[in-house]
């Protein structure tokens, strides 16, 4: 049994698992993990921005040296390949000189194989690690199967293997199953890995293209603004020259220059519009080319929920006895009407609040009693009391 245990652990702990790309720069975003150790421990589960988020609690205590967060605010616990926790200074102390046994279970450990803890529960930590590792090769998709049935069987097989590895049951046999799958499906695995890479690559290229496009456009705007400034400056100088060297009426000259300037400005605006249009065309082409790999646009769907699909259990009358709304009905000047206020809206709201949820079974199981409201209720709500 103990050899099985070691096998499972070493299989799990293959080099790929520590694919963490966490650099010291990103680490500084998580201040409580400032490491006191000479090596940066990476790995663990990453969040959406690619950062590792470590599990952290005020109750943390090193099981080996018993120091806790109150004694040492910088305490950082890491997890060994046998899923035992200890603090960075214990790791430094025990493993700097080379491989040594785990103080808890005796398994031989190396300093480099400790990883940060992501989950509070180390069983979960282990399960996630196993699933990540498995998912690299068990990467078939629904499309890879002729029917749902065989896809189901495949998922079941993956679950069985996962279960065995987590609980360290029948390790040699399970390893054999993995090896058999790997051999049988080499082509599929390769293909799906390529698909995944292609997708990531496409995303990267799209971003790069967008960045380039933005840069180009910014440059163009700068150039256009410069040209415009030069043109205006030229016009101004021409006018001054003209005024100096001509006997014509100054007012007429100014008016003439202004008219010409306006005409040129209009021409520039038209050219700018043309440029914007051309740019939109270009952007459209670019995005069309990309949308084949990324996400296609979908036709418009007005509302995404079925709110209006339900039949109302009650209807609104054309009028209610409602002393509170007298002010509105006496609105002789039409002030409320002019502001868009509708008393019907207030009635509808009051009615909805009054009847909403009547046919929803109350959440407490035993005491609940379905309410016999299935037909329309002619609700007569005294508005004044709402």
């Amino acid at each position, binding site marked *: 049994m103990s050899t099985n245990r070691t096998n499972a652990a070493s299989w799990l702990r293959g080099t790929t698992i520590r694919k963490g790309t966490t650099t010291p720069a990103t680490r500084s975003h998580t201040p409580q993990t400032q490491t006191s150790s000479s090596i940066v421990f990476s790995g663990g589960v990453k969040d*959406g921005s690619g950062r590792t988020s470590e599990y952290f609690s005020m109750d943390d205590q090193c099981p080996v040296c018993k120091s806790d967060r109150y004694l040492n605010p910088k305490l950082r616990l890491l997890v060994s390949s046998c899923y035992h926790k200890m603090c960075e200074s214990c790791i430094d102390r025990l493993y700097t000189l080379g491989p040594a046994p785990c103080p808890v279970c005796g398994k031989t450990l190396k300093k480099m194989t400790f990883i940060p803890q992501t989950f509070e529960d180390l069983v979960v930590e282990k399960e996630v690690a196993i699933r990540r590792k498995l998912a690299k090769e068990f990467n078939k998709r629904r499309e890879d199967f002729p029917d749902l049935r065989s896809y*189901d069987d495949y998922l*079941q097989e993956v679950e069985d293997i996962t279960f065995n590895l987590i609980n360290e049951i029948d390790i040699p046999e399970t390893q054999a199953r993995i090896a058999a799958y790997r051999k049988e499906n080499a082509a599929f695995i390769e293909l799906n890995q390529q698909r995944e890479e292609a997708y990531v690559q496409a995303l990267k290229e799209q971003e790069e293209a967008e960045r380039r496009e933005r840069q180009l456009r910014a440059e163009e705007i700068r150039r256009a603004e410069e040209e415009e400034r030069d043109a205006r400056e030229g016009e101004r100088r021409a006018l001054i020259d003209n005024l100096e060297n001509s006997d014509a009426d100054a007012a007429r000259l100014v008016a003439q220059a202004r008219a010409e300037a306006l005409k040129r400005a209009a021409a520039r605006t038209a050219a700018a519009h043309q440029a914007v249009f051309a740019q939109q065309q270009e952007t459209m082409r670019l995005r069309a080319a990309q949308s084949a790999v990324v996400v296609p646009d979908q036709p*418009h769907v007005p509302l995404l929920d079925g709110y209006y699909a339900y039949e109302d259990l009650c209807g609104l009358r054309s009028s209610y006895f409602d002393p509170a709304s007298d002010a509105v009905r006496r609105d002789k000047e*039409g002030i409320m009407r*002019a502001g868009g206020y509708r008393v019907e809206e207030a009635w509808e709201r009051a009615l909805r609040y009054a009847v909403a949820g009547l046919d929803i079974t109350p959440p407490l199981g035993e005491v609940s009693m379905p309410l016999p409201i299935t037909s329309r209720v002619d609700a007569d709500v005294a508005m004044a009391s709402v």
Partner: protein
Amino acid sequence: MDAVEKANAERQRRWVKDQKVGEGTYAVVYRGRELATGRKIAIKKIKVGQFKDGLDMSAVREVKYLRELQHPNIIELLDVFSSKTNLNLVLEFLDTDLEMIIKDRSLVFLPADIKSWMAMTFRGLEFCHRNFILHRDLKPNNLLIASDGQLKIADFGLARDAADPGYKMTCQVITRWYRPPELLFGCRYYSTAVDIWSVGCIFAELMLRIPYLPGESDMDQLKTIFRALGTPTDEEWPGHTKLPDYVSVGQFPRTPLRDLFTAASGDTLNLLSKCIIFEPRKRISARDALYHPYFFALPYPTHPSKLPKTAAQTAAASRPPDEVDGNVDPGGGAPAGVGKAAPPKKLKRKLSGHDLSRNIARKLDFTAS
């Protein structure tokens, strides 16, 4: 420490505050993270106690409405806790807002992009209005954009329930450039139509890339509106001359929208014109807007993930994608109808005490007003 303080301290410990990212009229917004998962969040710290009654009404409103509204196009309120004299709202973190995108001159907007933003805005607004809530401060700066491109209506500091009959509402709401004429005329009884006017102004701004009606004072705002749309006649807008603050700011002729929006399609201008009708009762509703032919005509609205992004957003997104090597689900996404091999529950990261009761629809709320 009594039980309430203890519960509060516990909630507070779930969140870590990092650097400041924005400042509004009554709050400072910080970036932060959820301790247990590292998920990015925003903490909106509202200073209370600076107002006479202790708790600022805006803060109360914002909490009240955000707690009740759950929709993909409305910002999600994750938690609320207090610290010293501050009230802290924990919100989902959003990378940017529509104002920054409009102002980024290096971005090209396609007509389909504008359609996509408008559809998301109207969907979020329809949800507010369906629940009888007026937002009353719609502007590009309060439409935040998530990393997946989803637009979310934020800043419910001025929101309120549609009023009961006979109750006055303040007309000092909505940032001037987006404020409808009935509010500029001091009307105290108004409706959801005030938000539609604001959306119309945003729609126009998306096409023009500059604010559509930038008045310099409240008076100038009316002039700016009438200069663009013509001074309304009593026939066009019955009763408006009787409104409390009515003033005549001069007669301006009506110029066709086409003159300014040279490149827009007929459908586009039709929807825009229906958002900025003078008579509030004739203005289109958010729900009807979503069924307007503009949205069904080609091109399809751009998929949110492909909408133009600011440089900051692209930088945030180009960090290594989440878990390329850590796909926990070996099936590559849980396939529908395959219940047999569902991963065990404990695999989910601990989201300590996620408040499930919040998912119960507003419709069940009997305590409201």
